């Protein structure tokens, strides 16, 4: 029996070592594109068009970034992008939390129906509603060349998935906590703000991160709603920049790398909460 256990332990150790090796190889493959883009940003164009290409630059030309910034207004684009993302992420996270709280804790007529509507909308492709929404914002409300059509929708619940995620998370918190607070005379809002919200901090960070990524990637709507150069976001600015340069790949890769940074920073800050947040929700039903 003891020997059996020992050999089992050894087997496990071998399996773990194999796993580790496979993971290292795989992650090197996954990182290779990012490395290649980064290393290209540090090379001169002459070096980029040499054959065979090399994995390391001969000289690390960090000055490429300075040169690129002279004609690529990254900071302006970043500021514009943040002007959209910051209010939208806040709005989405708060309204999703409110919706999730109502579905998780409160009793009210029509709850089942509203919840099915909400889950049903998760299956609805966003592309389908694009044109009617465009007509509503630009013709109905006359919001042409404005950030509002990009921001305001996020103040409306922040998406069904996020409401669902918050609801699942709140369900894991023992009800006794709210009941104790009720006896102490706290209203539902007080409970939400002072008991529920601190307890679901990691879920709220997950929601904020998901919303951030979603907006970050939403090239199509940004193209549709933003017209003037001065309002360009990073996504549109980058595509414009590439279109105007065509073959100055070293500058294009600099601009690309710069636009990688904000997302990565935000992710690394929230990373700790991330898997925990999704695990806690159960994701079962």
């Amino acid at each position: 029996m003891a020997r059996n256990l020992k050999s089992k332990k050894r087997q496990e150790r071998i399996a773990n070592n194999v796993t580790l090796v496979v993971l290292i190889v795989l992650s090197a493959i996954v990182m290779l594109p990012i490395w290649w883009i980064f290393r290209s940003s540090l090379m001169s164009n002459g070096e980029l068009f040499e054959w065979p290409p090399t994995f390391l630059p001969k000289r690390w030309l960090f000055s490429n970034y300075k040169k690129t910034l002279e004609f690529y207004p990254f900071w302006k684009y970043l500021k514009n992008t943040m002007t959209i993302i910051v209010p939208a992420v806040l709005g989405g996270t708060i309204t999703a939390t409110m919706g999730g709280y109502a579905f998780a804790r409160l009793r009210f007529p029509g709850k089942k129906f509203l919840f099915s509507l909400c889950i049903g909308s998760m299956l609805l492709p966003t592309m389908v509603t694009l044109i009617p929404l465009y007509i509503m914002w630009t013709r109905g409300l006359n919001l042409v060349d404005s950030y509002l059509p990009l921001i305001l929708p996020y103040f409306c619940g922040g998406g069904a998935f996020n409401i669902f995620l918050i609801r699942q998370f709140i369900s894991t918190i023992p009800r006794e906590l709210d009941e104790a607070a009720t006896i102490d005379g706290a209203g539902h809002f007080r409970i939400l703000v002072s008991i529920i919200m601190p307890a679901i901090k990691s879920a709220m960070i997950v929601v904020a991160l998901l919303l951030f990524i979603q907006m970050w990637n939403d090239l199509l709507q940004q193209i549709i709603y933003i017209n003037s150069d001065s309002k360009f976001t990073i996504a549109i600015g980058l595509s414009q920049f590439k279109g105007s340069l065509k073959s100055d790949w070293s500058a294009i890769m600099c601009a690309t790398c710069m636009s990688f940074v904000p997302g990565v920073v935000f992710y690394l800050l929230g990373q700790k909460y991330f898997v925990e947040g999704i695990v806690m929700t159960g994701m079962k039903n």
Partner: protein
Amino acid sequence: MTNQLLKSEARTAYLCLIPSIIGLVVLTYIPLAAVFGLSLFRWEGVGVPQWVGLKNYVRLFSRDPYFKDAICATVYFAFLSVVGSMVYSLFVALLLNRKIPARGFFRALFYLPYVLPAMAVYIGWSWLYETNFGLFNYLLSLVGIKKVMFIGSSKMVIPSLALITVWLSGNLIVIFLAGFQNVPRIYMEAAETDGANAWQRFWRITIPCMTPIIFYNLLMSLITNLQVVTPALALTNGGPGNSSCFLSYLMYVYAFRNGKLSYACAIAFVSFLLIGVFTLVLFATSKTWMFSAGGDD
């Protein structure tokens, strides 16, 4: 007293839900009805819409030069992307689920591509795919394969774009990982006591317990990838030829470059139906392979 309490509870609930209800009604379900309504008119953004019934659809299916290609490209892309990213992310999640050192680091690493802005990703990859000096052709040359036009040839463009999607599928990995951690330990221990080996435990316990998560990921990535538009916007402009002219991209071109808003609505509605059919098929077949623990909600 209790009645009054319930009333105040309901009032709070509706207050909390006002934003979501507005979102659902004004931004989701009304536009869905509107897209169908508009598709029955002829309207190019100015003047009074003209009733044409189903003519937009008839034209779409009989005379539109791009529509059939667009459907094929979309379905082909979605198929490759969904299969590729499901296999890749399930495999990585399995590896990450073992007790290995620096797990958090690896997890962060595989998730990283997902947090990069799409536009930058496609521009970056277009350099990797460059025919003469790009990374991929360099790697292929090392094993003696002749240069491939990844983005420039109509045969390769869809698989090349799908590969980027697979690379970006870090979010699926995280959801799979979460699922693994919810597989009840008791089942595992019971099976182990009964003498089941690792392989049997994987196929008889882990996978059945994971089927709801697999279903969820499959459904969501199918819906997302059938709506694909960004690679065409950022990289290919639908080309070469019409080979990457996805349905959503075609809709965008008709609506926002040619001003044919109502005609584009017909495309949007067809794409809604297409996604609906795929969703229904998935739901219908899921009964045969999805494991449910029964009883609990």
